[in-house]
């Protein structure tokens, strides 16, 4: 009587995975577009100060970074523990900053080089002396738009 089949009968059709690559590629492009590559390898250890009134840096292509802090733990033996400046991947001196800015200004294409922003990423325990020197050097180099890098209060990482 019963028309219920007990032993399966019709087999489930296999799910096509042909569109899987497309989906993954979409994800990949999403991540590529929204994230930024790690800028440099840090030679200095930086815990940026905390603040609440933050503005986001909008155009990544216009931003150049200046890192300030003590050399990393494993580099202290070699470079000492005095606060240092890092430009791109190497330690630098404040006197090299002007030249660096001029050189970087030349690499900005498609946008107005005068819109260049220098972001100062400095450790929170840095003394203002070196920051003041950097600011003076930036003024001389006419890089007047600056940004003090900071993280949201209570969300430090």
């Amino acid at each position, binding site marked *: 009587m019963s028309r219920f089949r007990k032993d399966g009968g019709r087999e489930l059709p296999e799910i096509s995975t042909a569109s899987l*690559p497309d989906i993954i590629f979409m994800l990949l492009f999403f991540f*590529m577009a929204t994230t930024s*590559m790690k800028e440099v390898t840090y030679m200095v250890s930086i815990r*940026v100060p905390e603040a*609440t009134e933050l503005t986001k840096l909008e155009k990544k292509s216009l931003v150049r970074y200046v890192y300030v802090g003590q050399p990393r733990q494993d580099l202290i033996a070699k470079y000492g523990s005095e606060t240092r400046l890092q430009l791109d991947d190497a330690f630098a001196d404040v006197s090299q900053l002007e030249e660096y800015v001029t050189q970087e200004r030349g690499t900005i294409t498609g946008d107005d080089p005068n819109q260049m922003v220098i972001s100062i990423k400095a450790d929170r325990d840095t*003394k*203002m002396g070196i920051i003041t020197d950097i600011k003076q050097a930036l003024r001389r180099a006419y890089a007047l738009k600056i*940004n003090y890098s900071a993280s949201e209060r209570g969300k430090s990482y």
Partner: protein
Amino acid sequence: MAKRKVPGINASSMADISFLLLIFFLVTTSMNVNSGLSRRLPPPLPPGQKQPDVEVNRRNVLVILINSQNQILAGNNVVAIQELKQTVKDFITNPTNDPTLPVITPVKFPEIGVVNVAKDHVISLQNDRGTDYQAYIEVQNELVAAYNELRDELALNKFGAHYNACTQQQQDIISDVYPMKISEAEPKNYGGQ
């Protein structure tokens, strides 16, 4: 000439390849957006020229000093970081028309009407070489917070929306009422190393 049929390329490994790429990008990129406090530096002085003595009314200037012990002097009083915002807000608005605070003049703005503003106020921020960066950023932060709160209050009052929710045009008007005037003075050395 028998035509050989081109065999179809097996694309089943495509998913694996793209997964690998995806994971590579996930690992090497950083999601966190860089944020911070934006400032504009004053243009450099021509070489050999001394800082010009600009004639400004003393009462229009709020000098904030941070010494090497990270203590804050605003005007003539030592203030704690928590009190600084209110001090700055009082300074910018001068609600009681105090003769020691900036001169306020009624100015007419489009859409808003007449507002009493301290047109010529300047906040001058000075620090010692021994000041901690964190303390300096905190003070900068409080200054921005004071301006942001004033703008927000005005926006709520006049347009019934928070400053960030206003249209660009409305925001422009409000930032004209409370323009951010923070001067980062020429470096000096203030006692105590």
